[in-house]
């Protein structure tokens, strides 16, 4: 038995709101520059919008539950699917993953805070106000139909639909302005993460000793800087078109609607990797701990990450096979899209190899990660199918595409977001989440997920187009749509179990201690929750698993890594 004590001071008592009074407590959160508090704010903000976006999804599914249904009007339906997509990508996916990074990256690299704490606060508040501005659109104007001016042009806002002539009012303006504000926040966080990871690592933490989550966030931050900028530029161009009579996207006046599609997908496809790479990072932290083995093929995981970074910048036009590209362009983007499956496949094999022969513990975080691995394989396979241009010509804008990207966004990303919350909740709050409720959450959500998105592939193959308000009863889609909608309700029940678990565990969860999972990265060397300064003394590491070295002084990793 190898016990060692690391004299890291800090409070272990969980702070109670009542001690300093509500207003003082509230003030402390508003003026905070502490990366941990800002990380919590990001996650709380995103979870709120996850519920909002979820409610919108439920409205969409109720509307599509039966043929010729009129649960909402066509105009409101357009607003719902636009806001659902925009919310889930910009107000849930990115902020929550950057929130996790905000919280754990400085801890993982042994730093006391992010490189630019004030910029960190500015970035969060820009993101938050961007979301508020977007939702203010529901009440911020009469709009055309008495339903406010919520955006209704799809989350991709294709030109020329966004032109003043086709979308009068302020719906599109709200979309562009809110995302510009949130986009600046995202850029600030990305700059901060790059600076923190490059320059704030503790002694001994070379690049190749960084936890994989940190590596992934470095890649994601770089990707964010490259991809958010064209989107912001395009949105500014759109506003110039709409407010100043510009013609960037007006084909009849010498512009090109196609430019918008290029700009959007130059952002949009790497954005998928901006969302999924942190999910990969989460899996790469959780799977080894719950397999009781070091990650298999650390170097190849890093290499695959870098490969994905570059290749993901060269695949955007696979969203555009139906707009009339040349054969050479199509061939290039088909091949590039297929090539990106290689580094992704390497990651899958490495996670499997990590689990292989390990002593697996199927606690809730691991359950979500295992489901992620298998669901992501399916998502990848349908992605390769869609990468074949002739297939895409048949399936483009069908529910098959919706099923594919929900397999990525929910089956991979949301599953790993839940895994991360169950994994790091004890560190953040000092309390464990209920395993019993966690397993209920997993199995109900898992069943709902497959009930929803598996038949969605079939209904897409049967020709159901995306974004339609309703459908005739004689297309053979009725039963499948009913099943899909029931699945959505089952997922919603799973999310409610999660919310209940979160609230209950915050109040009554059992004490976690500093290292409840017997893990190996530096964040578990601090008290739970960590003190404001993280580490009273700067840590020094000699391997990729510093806590392993401490726990196994006779058999430390650094003997093998040097």
């Amino acid at each position, binding site marked *: *038995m*190898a*016990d060692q*004590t*690391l004299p*890291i*001071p*800090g409070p272990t008592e969980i702070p109670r709101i009542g001690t300093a009074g509500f207003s003082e407590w509230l003030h*402390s959160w*508003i*003026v905070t520059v*502490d990366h941990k508090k800002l990380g919590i704010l990001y996650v709380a903000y995103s979870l709120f919008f996850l519920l909002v976006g979820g409610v919108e999804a439920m409205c969409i599914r109720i509307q599509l539950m039966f043929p010729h249904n009129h649960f909402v009007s066509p105009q409101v339906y357009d607003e719902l699917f636009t806001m659902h997509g925009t919310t889930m990508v910009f107000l849930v996916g990115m902020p929550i993953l950057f929130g996790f990074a905000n919280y754990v990256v400085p801890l993982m690299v042994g730093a*006391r805070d992010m490189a630019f*704490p*004030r910029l960190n*606060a*500015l970035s969060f*508040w*820009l993101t938050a106000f*961007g979301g508020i501005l977007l939702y*203010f659109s529901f009440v*911020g104007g009469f709009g055309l139909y008495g339903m406010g001016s919520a955006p209704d042009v799809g989350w991709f806002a294709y030109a020329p639909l966004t032109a003043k002539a086709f979308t009068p009012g*302020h719906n599109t*303006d709200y979309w562009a*302005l809110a995302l510009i*504000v949130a986009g*600046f926040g995202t850029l600030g966080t990305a700059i901060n993460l790059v600076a923190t990871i490059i320059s704030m690592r503790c002694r001994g933490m070379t690049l190749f000793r960084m936890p994989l989550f940190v590596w992934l966030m470095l890649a994601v931050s770089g990707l964010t800087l490259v991809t958010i900028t064209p989107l912001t530029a395009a949105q500014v161009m759109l*506003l110039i078109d709409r407010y100043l009579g510009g013609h960037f996207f007006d084909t009849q006046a010498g512009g090109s609607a196609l430019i918008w599609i290029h700009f959007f997908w130059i952002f949009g496809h790497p954005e998928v990797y901006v969302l999924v790479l942190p999910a990969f990072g989460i899996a790469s932290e959780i799977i080894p701990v719950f397999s*009781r*083995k*070091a990650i298999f*093929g*650390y*170097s190849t995981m890093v290499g695959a990450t870098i490969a994905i970074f570059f290749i993901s910048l060269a695949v955007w036009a696979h969203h555009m096979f139906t707009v009339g590209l*040349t054969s050479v362009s199509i*061939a290039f983007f088909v091949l590039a899209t297929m090539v990106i499956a290689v580094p992704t496949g390497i990651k899958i094999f490495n996670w499997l190899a990590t689990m292989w*022969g390990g*002593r697996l513990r199927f606690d809730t975080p691991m359950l979500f990660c295992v489901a992620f691995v298998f669901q992501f394989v399916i998502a990848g396979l349908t992605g390769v199918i869609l990468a074949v241009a002739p297939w895409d010509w048949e399936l483009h804008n069908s529910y098959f595409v919706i099923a594919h990207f929900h397999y990525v966004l929910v089956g991979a990303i949301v599953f790993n977001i839940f895994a991360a919350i169950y994994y790091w909740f004890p560190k953040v709050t000092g309390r464990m989440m209920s395993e019993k409720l966690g397993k209920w959450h997993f199995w109900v959500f898992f069943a709902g997920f497959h009930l929803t998105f598996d038949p969605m592939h079939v209904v897409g193959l049967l020709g159901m187009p995306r974004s339609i308000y309703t459908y005739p009863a004689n297309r053979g889609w009725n039963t499948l749509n009913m099943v899909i909608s029931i699945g959505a309700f089952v997922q919603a029940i799973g999310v409610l179990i999660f919310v209940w678990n979160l609230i209950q565990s915050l109040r009554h969860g059992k004490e976690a201690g*500093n*290292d409840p999972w*017997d893990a190996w990265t530096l964040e578990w060397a601090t008290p739970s929750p960590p*003190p*404001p*300064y993280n580490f*009273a*003394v*700067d*840590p*020094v*590491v000699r391997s990729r*698993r*510093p*806590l392993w*070295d*401490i*726990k*196994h002084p006779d*058999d430390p*990793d650094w*003997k093998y890594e040097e």
Partner: protein
Amino acid sequence: MEETAHKGAEHGNGQSIHLPSPTGWPIMLAFGFTMLLAGLVTTFMISIFGFVFIVAGCVGWFHDVLPHEQHEEVPILEQPVVITTSRAVVERVKLTGEHRPHAAGGTSAVMAGIQGGIAGGIAMAIPAMLYGLITHHSVWYAINLLGGAGVGDWAHVTAAAIATFHWQWLLIACVIHGIMCLLVGLLFVAMLPMLPRYPVVLCGLVAPILWSGIIHSFLGFVNPELSAHISWPWFVVSQIAFGVVAGLIISRQTHIHTSKHLPLAARMGFVIPGMTHHDSDAGTPHGEKETH
């Protein structure tokens, strides 16, 4: 402890640490920026309001960091953290030769793959051009078929047009053919030593037939024009010509012996600790697992 440095970062009497002080200016600046843009969809007064907030936020922020960044002293609370594990016993996965019974004991040089690829490419071209000569009286037919697959304006093309000389198609065909032959040659270098028996038969006959079948199954979808003009029996013959010639040349080259006991990652040159258990300095945490 040796692994943990106690670098002094404390200030004052060592009982506190200074951190950036909390500030409200970032939220004010963010609010101002949002208001500035929100004025576009509401009223210009909102933009003016936002501008005032931006100026106030910037001025306040500058005061926070100039001439010196403001900090607050956070007292250190002594509370030792115990880092221990209940899984102290480390179990190693024993790696024996039986883990990779089919691993290659040797491989061929990369140059062999290049030579095999070039020779196979020439051999492959002979039946392809023969086919063009016999069926369409033109050696350019097969070349144009390959080159035509890589250009954009190949729709409703006639057999007569394919049979005539086009320098662009020749250029494209040469590039595609050259790259593919070299890559397959290199693939043969990696694969041949791993096949248990009759590697040339497997790579020269079985693999080309399987490969042709795969291409036949999807080419109709991917490039129907090209698929309609291909003679599949001749296609298989040219693939076999490549496989046999490249396979023979590569298999007759001198083998480079490698240790079959080394795992794939190690043979690829990755430094992954503990891939072997017999050398304690090269042992692996990958092979380690804990028991309660």
